[in-house]
């Protein structure tokens, strides 16, 4: 199961997680980042980078995470790949 970005990203969208992803799995949706489930290799290196703990480890999914999983899946189809953080650009 891939990692997903939760709603906490809405208040932050710092994008620092993007710099550590080895496969460029993040997508730049309008109001938050999401993770493309087809690209994510489940390495988890992004999780500790997030300043607002928005990235959810699949081992810790609960029933409440279904909406977030669907949101990441849907938005990743239409949002562009983000290759580097705002600070690195």
């Amino acid at each position, binding site marked *: 199961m891939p990692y997903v970005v939760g709603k906490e990203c809405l208040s932050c969208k710092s994008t*620092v997680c993007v710099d550590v992803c*080895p496969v460029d799995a993040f997508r730049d949706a309008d109001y938050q980042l999401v993770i493309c489930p087809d690209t994510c*290799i489940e390495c988890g290196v992004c999780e500790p*980078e997030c300043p607002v703990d928005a990235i959810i480890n699949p081992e810790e999914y609960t029933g409440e995470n279904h909406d977030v999983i669907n949101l990441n899946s849907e938005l990743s189809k239409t949002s562009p790949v983000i290759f580097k953080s705002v600070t690195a650009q």
Partner: protein
Amino acid sequence: MKVEGLNLLEWFVAMERNPDEWNFVNEDFEIRSNVNQSARLLAHDAYVNNNQAALATLHECLAIIYRNEFECTRIEQVNADRRPIVSDIQSVLEGAMLQYEMQGLLNSDVSGFPANGKEYVKWLKKLVSKSPSSVHPFYTRFLSEEATAKDVKYYLIQETNLDPRFDDILAFMQIGLPVGQKLELAKNYFDEMGNGVEADVHSRMFAQTLRAAGVDDSDMSSAMLLQSIVSGNVSSCLALSRRHYFKAVGYFGVTEYLAPRRFKHVIKAWERNNMPAHGIEYHKLHVYIDTEHANGWFNNVVVPLVDQDPRIGREIAIGALIRINSSARYLDELSVRLGSNTTTPA
């Protein structure tokens, strides 16, 4: 043999040319005392007086010592017992090197961690994250966007101080471990061995990368940066000494953890410069395989060690920070050498 005003490196090189000499010198305690004193003076000059030439000499000596440890013996050497003198010198030089690596660490960075293994791993990953060099601009900016094929070649030469040795490091580290930890390192080792397929042995694949980048043997010694040699020596020091095992777990765990995010940019540089496709297979493989190794290392080595005795967590954190800091110095020197203006951000 005259040893007054001894230049340790020259003496070492001379001894290596004539291995039988070791047995005579072993019996001469005046020479042994002088050699030991020379090692102490060299260490003081390098790390207290900050003499860069002395630092380079010290690390060339250590590199010779470690090379002998990682190479198979030759028939000319079977009767040469280097241990009495080499152990003495090695202890002095390693002591100075490690003292320097550890003196810059903040106590607050290696204490106050959770005593539970799983929680400790989360804490350790955060520790790595907050280090500015965990995302180094040498990779994210220079290699990713600017580096030429010549730059990539120069970078790969520096990387020979760790990558081709990693299988042997894993072999050394497995000695005496409990089964769970040994299994994790053995899995990692078997991956290094290409899972039994000779062409897929990682040292072979890395050699293929070097050839594809145009690196030959003569490039190795002439182009090696000091901080690259230092990184290689720290790696060898932690891997070869059993008492440093816990630090080595942190050091090499972080090495595996950081490799995928860094290799992504090596691949971009390689492809941007249209370098031969077969040469980048090693790095492409490690983007995936090192994520598995890092997670396995954290879950099956770090977690049980900290659960066994939380004091080990401090040693693991020290090893992790030594890796981060020595790697940052190496990448900073490489950035300056290649004129990339991508040193570690403050």
